[in-house]
């Protein structure tokens, strides 16, 4: 029933470059309607609820400062978390990369003799492709978040980090549920579809004794973990099983319990446009008589400590995964999430994915933005995404330019030529005169260039170019003086 194959289109190592992947989506009007419908609704709700909060900017400043402070002292806070969590009965594991995290989790499951697990939605597990790994090792994985069930049963990749199935509409959900749950008479009413998911999962919650989840926050002061959710599937997975495994990125830590007063005010408003999400759970290790008897936390690095080293890019790790940046992004609104070739789409994905890949893959993503700055404006922890995008663009360009095979690349050839011409006024003026003659060949009667040959065609494919004027500013200035005499 479930696929053991990873979604290759969301594996940055194999995904096609953004412009190529985006074309497929741009030619799918149904998908574009689904995505635009969803993000427009969230954006409108978010806008209303942020407007009613007259200390919103102060909350953002506090959140940004707390997150920066944590990153500056990440080692100390992680060690504090480890000590407290262990004292409370938890077992803390450290994984340098996805492979190690998968191995640790499988070892725990083997020890528990678990052939099935229930799972709370966690993007970190998608990052390390945990489900296909577990399935190929004989462990059945049951996603329990409604959107994740839709994706798992429909064998669809996620396209958003908060509402992962927002690209699927109700009739598509009906079709998937009818087929996979054996309910041919199902209607496409979201109420009925949700009830079907409730029935489908109830018995699994009550019988499967092992759960895997993520963490929204790790609290250093107490060793507690907090999970923010809506449906109650999280509470089920956190409470009913005998063994709970939490997979968390090392950057998820907050210094104190009280710091939640900032983040719980920002997260739901930013993510789903609610004053507060229906359920937030916090637990500390294992608690006698309440919840799992065994609790494991797997702290995942997977490239994060490398990002810490770079002063501009470090802010990427402040992210609390609210997805406000993708909801506000004009590019994401058109392309949806799949085109980003990563489980982290949108503006945050465009900066996070290439860094997690050490710029060996996903080099097209920093360019998948118009740099309009909407993402920065809505970010509850003030990540200056355009600034990081520009930094990554310059790194990608530097990397490409130094490759021998790019020496005759028309783009770099052109840039070297421009560099040469712009270095001297004489050369520049000469180039202007020659350019004017050359451009005349392509300028239509309306004064616009509608298509250029060769590399220039890439530009004119989607835009027109104004023809060069008969006189440059310098020429006009010089002539004006002559006339005045």
């Amino acid at each position, binding site marked *: 029933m479930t696929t053991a194959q990873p979604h290759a289109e969301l594996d940055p190592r194999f995904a096609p470059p953004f412009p190529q992947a985006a074309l497929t989506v741009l030619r799918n009007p149904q998908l574009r309607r689904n995505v635009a419908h969803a993000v427009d609704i969230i954006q409108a709700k978010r806008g209303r609820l942020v407007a009613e909060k007259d200390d919103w900017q102060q909350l953002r400043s*506090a959140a940004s400062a707390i997150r920066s402070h944590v990153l500056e002292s990440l080692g100390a806070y992680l060690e504090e978390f480890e000590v407290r969590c262990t004292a409370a009965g938890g077992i803390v594991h450290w994984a340098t990369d996805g492979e*190690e995290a998968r191995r640790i989790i499988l070892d725990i499951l083997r*020890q528990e003799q678990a052939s099935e697990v229930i799972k709370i939605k966690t993007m970190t597990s998608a990052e390390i492709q945990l489900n296909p790994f577990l399935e190929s090792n004989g462990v059945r994985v049951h996603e329990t978040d409604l959107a994740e069930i839709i994706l798992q049963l429909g064998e669809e990749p996620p396209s958003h980090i908060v509402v992962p199935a927002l690209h699927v509409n109700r009739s598509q959900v009906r079709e998937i549920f009818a087929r996979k749950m054996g309910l041919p008479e199902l209607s496409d009413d979201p109420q009925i579809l949700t009830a079907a998911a409730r029935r489908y999962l109830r018995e699994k919650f009550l019988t499967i004794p092992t759960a895997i989840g993520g963490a929204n926050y790790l609290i250093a002061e107490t060793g*507690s973990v907090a999970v923010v959710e809506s449906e109650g599937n999280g509470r089920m997975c*956190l409470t009913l099983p005998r063994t709970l495994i939490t997979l968390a990125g090392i950057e998820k830590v907050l210094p104190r319990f009280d710091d939640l007063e*900032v983040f719980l005010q920002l997260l739901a408003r930013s993510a789903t446009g609610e004053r507060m999400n229906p359920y*937030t759970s916090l637990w*500390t290790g294992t608690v006698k008589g309440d919840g799992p008897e065994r609790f494991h936390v797997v702290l995942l*690095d997977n490239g994060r400590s490398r990002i810490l*080293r770079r002063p501009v890019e470090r802010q990427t790790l402040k992210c609390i995964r609210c997805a406000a940046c993708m909801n506000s992004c004009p590019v994401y609104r058109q392309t949806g999430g799949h085109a980003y070739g990563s489980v982290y789409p949108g503006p945050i994905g465009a900066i996070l994915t290439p860094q997690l890949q050490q710029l060996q893959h996903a080099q097209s993503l920093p360019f998948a933005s118009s740099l309009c700055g909407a993402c920065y404006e809505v970010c509850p922890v003030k990540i200056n995404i355009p600034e990081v995008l520009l930094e990554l663009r310059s790194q990608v360009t530097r990397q490409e330019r130094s490759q021998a095979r790019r020496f005759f690349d028309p783009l770099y050839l052109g840039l070297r030529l421009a560099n040469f011409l712009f270095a001297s006024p004489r050369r520049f003026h000469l180039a202007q005169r020659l350019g004017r003659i050359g451009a005349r060949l392509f300028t239509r009667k309306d004064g616009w260039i509608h298509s250029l040959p060769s590399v220039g065609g890439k530009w004119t494919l989607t835009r027109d170019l104004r023809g060069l004027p008969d006189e440059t500013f310098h020429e006009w200035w010089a002539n004006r003086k002559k006339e005045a005499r």
Partner: protein
Amino acid sequence: MTVSSSSREAILAAIRMGTATTAKEAGWLHEAYQGLPRTYHHAGSLESEACLSLLVERLREYGAEIAETTPQALPDAIAAQLASTGKRRFAAPAALSSDWLAPGFEWHVDNDLPTDEIEHCEGVLTGAAAAIADSGTIVLHHGPQEGRRLLTLLPDIHVCVLLASQVVETLPEYFRQCIAPPELVTWISGPSATADIEMTRIKGVHGPRSLHVILVHDN
């Protein structure tokens, strides 16, 4: 369970390398933390009556049922609220006051109830640890009056008795009044919900599908 210490050391070393210019001694950490800007609203501005009306308004927006009562009339209010659900089988935490357990209902008091029996209950009656008016949030710390987590999760109806003196206006006020960080917390803002299908909000996925709040004016 073997916990690999080499990965731990490798990750912490990599973090230290990355933060060499910023991480300082433990004393510095505390000072830097204290110095973080926190200029957002800490206290609310509403009178207590207005604060309670705000809570009621927020809870209604989430689709919760609200009843208001006095300490003297509480047992009757509980009985009326339970009757309004049309259900009979209710669970209750062990430390709940016996006059809350209205006659005429089948009570399953949690002296280590098996999961099946909790699942079999149609509703649950509990107290609360606090409530936050601004976001319409009921807070459970899962103490003796609130029951363990499972108790307020499996039954389909949650009837929660909340004292007016437990209500604060803002989230920071709630955190100020916690003497020590609790081991377990569930912040509940309306009944379980999802908007995963076309952003249509559907009430009641896996948690209780109805939330009833009995607000007791105790001051």
